């Protein structure tokens, strides 16, 4: 197996482990300890400490909880909705086709971020509701892909041949159409939905400065807070460069930002990369 695949799977496993690690704890973030403020990485805490002396590894693990379940829900909604929409557009008769076309056109016309903000306010800042809304908003993209694939195979009389071989319609529908023909694309779009949920949760908790974040260790909130440490660090650098006495500041403060950015980037990269690999694997596989 190639190294990037191992890394990507490792990142996904780390997310699951982080959730297991924080399960059952009363506070998901790290323990506040002012004596450990901006402390350097150590064996006990591999990524150092934040401005409140909390261990960054514990903070990042706690932040996973805010997007893991909503992300999984968004993926599920996108997958199910996309398959149904795609079948409506490319498999069933004219009435479902029109209905699917109008519904998907309607969803596509909605301004995504505005709707998500409204849903976030409407459902009392519920991340699960946000996950469902995001999943619905991503349905048209998958439905169109499913339709294109079904139409392409239909044009080559692929399904007609299967029917001529006497295969039951349910097997043609669920195995040949959904799993073999569209499985790769469905998995890719589901992973993309998860990645989008991570971005959305991080962006929302970043832009509202944590006021709407469901957790104190949401990654967006941590990223926004880490800007303070960088500002502090830049002030120290400015004084040192000018030769004036520098105020007290820890040169390792920037590690807080680096660790959040690294975690965020690696999760998004992992889901994008796995998505690309899945689709390549499907395309190279010979159809029965």
């Amino acid at each position, binding site marked *: 197996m190639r190294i990037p695949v191992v890394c990507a799977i490792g990142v996904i496993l780390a997310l699951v482990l982080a959730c297991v690690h924080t399960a059952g704890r009363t506070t998901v973030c790290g323990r506040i300890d002012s004596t450990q403020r901006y402390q350097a990485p150590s064996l006990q805490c591999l990524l150092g400490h934040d401005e409140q002396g909390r261990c960054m590894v514990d903070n990042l693990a706690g932040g996973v909880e805010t997007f893991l379940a909503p992300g999984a829900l968004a993926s599920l909604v996108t997958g199910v909705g996309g398959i149904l929409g795609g079948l409506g557009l490319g498999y069933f008769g004219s009435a479902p086709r029109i209905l699917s076309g*109008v519904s998907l*056109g*309607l969803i*596509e*016309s*909605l*301004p*995504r*971020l*505005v*709707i998500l*903000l*409204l*849903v976030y*306010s*409407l*459902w*009392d800042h519920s991340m699960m509701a946000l996950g469902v809304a995001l999943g619905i908003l991503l349905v048209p993209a998958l439905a169109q892909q499913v339709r294109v694939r079904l139409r392409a195979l239909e044009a080559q009389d692929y399904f007609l041949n299967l029917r001529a071989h006497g295969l039951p319609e349910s097997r043609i529908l669920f195995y040949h159409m959904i799993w073999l023909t569209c499985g790769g694309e469905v998995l890719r779009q589901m992973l993309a939905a998860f990645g989008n949920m991570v*971005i959305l949760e*991080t*962006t929302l908790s*970043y*832009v*509202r400065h944590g006021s709407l974040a469901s957790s104190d260790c949401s990654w*967006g909130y941590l*990223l926004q807070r880490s*800007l303070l440490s*960088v*500002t502090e660090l*830049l002030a120290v*650098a*400015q004084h040192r*460069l*000018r030769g004036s006495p520098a105020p007290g500041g820890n040169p390792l403060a920037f590690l807080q*930002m680096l660790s959040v*950015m690294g975690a*965020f*980037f690696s999760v*998004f*990269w992992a889901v*994008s*990369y796995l998505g*690309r690999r899945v689709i390549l694997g499907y395309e190279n596989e010979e159809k029965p």
Partner: protein
Amino acid sequence: MFRLFTGLFIRLGLAIASAIGAASVIVMLVFATEMSFTGSDMDLVGSIDMIAMEFMGQLRLTLSGQRSLMPVDTSLLRAIRLAAHSILLACIAVAMGSFAAIISVYFTRGRPAIRQRHWELRGALYSTPTVLLATLTMVGWNALLVLGSAVFEVDTKDLQFPGTSVVIKWVSAIIVLPLSSGVYLDLRNHMYEEMLALEQSDFVLALQANGLGVSGPLLRNLIGPFVIRAIGKLPQVLSEVIVIEIIFDFNGVGTELLHLLGERDLTALIGITMLFVAVMTALRGMAGLLSLLMKPGSSSEGAL
């Protein structure tokens, strides 16, 4: 010709139907939000009447050349003005991305190794969400200022990010947006592939065999799909603009939207979301109509 007009008519009808449907969904959502905020009954017809009256009143006064007697600086009008800024920013970002894509294709023509590096860059940039890229831009700019102020011994406090300098915010937004939204790389890749396909097509080979120049025909065949794709990218960039405006503390529709949600200004919320739906539907419709008009065979000129 009949088929062309039928296609145009159907697309226009579908776009209008989608816009009306989307607007209805938004109105319902906003009112549901309002109900959850206040827990009281709401006057749907009254609010929509208010928006319509405000629009029509302003339009009438503007057309008759009179000064407005109504308080112009209402939250709705303010939101619309800010939305216009955001749309302008999105248009400039797409234009910049398109320009960079054209320049990049021109200079990397016939160099597959560079193209391969672009593919890798594309993967890396796609893995960099707007919020990260914007944060990195802010930190990078402030670090440069610190270095500059130390070397040149000047006070750069006013230029710090996100500070008060609108020019720095606009420039940063115009650089970040085409990269984070994937506009530059998508357009670049699309144009490169279209160009490769055209260069190997029969009519270009025939022109070359006859010793004629191919740049003109190539450009004519490339520019249509390119413009359509660039316009099709605008709705996506518009969503990114909202995020960028909030992060860079821009005086734009993104910050206004958050403010309106906080203030629970129902009229302005409906107005602003309606405006977004209208703009996005118009852009999608424009891209669809252009693709229909520029499809080979829709005009008598043919491919050349």
